[in-house]
């Protein structure tokens, strides 16, 4: 027993008598309460519903909602990602797969781009660490709610999908 627990009258050990009820008789017959509940339900029939018809309807989400990922592009339309593996390193779910390759020679000032950039959305926990880790601001989270697909393969987003997401 903790030291600062309030002191109460010691219960008689071994007593099995029920404690007296503190509810009044009106309450104990429950009918007014049932009526009250039904009234609330009835009122909500005429109000605007708070639920939405997902997935036909999409919810409005916060600006800071962490939805599906997107790979960003620079002013010239080239992907910003340099395949530094920072996101993959930071990812607690190990859902990011990157394979690097040399950037095309005509991309001035760029050495490396991802040949493969895949995110397994089934593994992803949407923590946003990848966005935090990115030194190039090349990955960000959209406010798209994760989609539903029929096969597991479809949940693996590749580079092109992420770039156009």
């Amino acid at each position: 027993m903790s030291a600062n627990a309030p002191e109460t009258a010691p219960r008689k050990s071994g007593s099995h008598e029920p404690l007296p009820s503190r509810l009044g008789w009106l309450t104990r017959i429950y009918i007014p309460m049932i009526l009250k509940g039904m009234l609330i339900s009835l009122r909500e029939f005429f109000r605007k519903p708070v639920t939405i018809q997902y997935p036909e309807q999409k919810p409005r989400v916060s600006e800071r909602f962490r939805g599906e990922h997107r790979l960003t592009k620079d002013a010239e339309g080239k992907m910003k990602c340099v395949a530094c593996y920072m996101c993959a390193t930071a990812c607690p779910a190990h859902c990011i797969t990157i394979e690097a390759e040399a950037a095309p020679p005509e991309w001035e000032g760029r050495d490396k781009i991802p040949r493969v950039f895949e995110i397994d959305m089934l593994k992803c926990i949407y923590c946003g660490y990848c966005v935090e880790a990115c030194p190039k601001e090349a990955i960000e989270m959209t406010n798209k709610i994760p989609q539903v697909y029929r096969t597991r393969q479809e949940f693996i987003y590749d580079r092109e999908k992420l770039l156009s997401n």
Partner: protein
Amino acid sequence: MAKMPAKTLSSEALRQFHDWVDEYPNKRSMLMMVLRLVEEEFGCIDDDAMEIAADLCGVNVAHVQGMVTFYTHFKRPAHGKHRFMVCATLMCALDGNTDQALAQIRAKLGLKPGEATPDGLFSCEKVECLADCDKPPVIQKDDEHFCSMKGPALDAYIDKLLTAEGKTSEQYLAATPVTMDLRVAVLPVHYNFEGEQNVGARRFDDKDPYFAPGEGSENGSARTTGVPPALKTPLTAPVAGGALNPSNAGHGANGTSGGQHG
């Protein structure tokens, strides 16, 4: 020396070289003077001249290239036949003396510092102290040294050169000057050697006599150091950055000596 330079030294120059051999404790220490010798012999120090100097002094040609690019007064192929070096250090630059000389050269030849005329006859550059600080501005033109070289003296001198070359000032003013490129040619970074993949660890199959018994390399012989590989891309810009762009002549661009902050 797999690649033989296209040029050869004249017998006089070789005699001069052999005179020097006794003067120096070793051949390497003759390099400064040998570079002067080949510069005089060929008019400037180009790649062939460096090979010759390296051969004479028994040093690696990469070292000679390091020497030539370290010392700013060696004449390179990019420099004009008449190379104007205008002192731009404080004592000459005070009271606008350097600026005046440069302005005069520009008015006559259309050259800004760091530029050469398209025909390669004239070039102009800013250099650091030429050690005649009491009579600014100091200009060195190749092996000629001039004090207080501004105003009519400079104009007359340039006119004299123009006449000797059979050119006129107007010709140059109408032409677009070229930026002097003193950089060293290097292979671009995306260059791949023969049989090389861009990525991926490969089996090592060249140059090692054991691992390359006729297959792998087409001619069956291992490549040795010194034979330049066939280039897929022309041997020009070191960076995919176009440092030749005149507007780039900002802070310390590659090797454009004196061309800074034009």
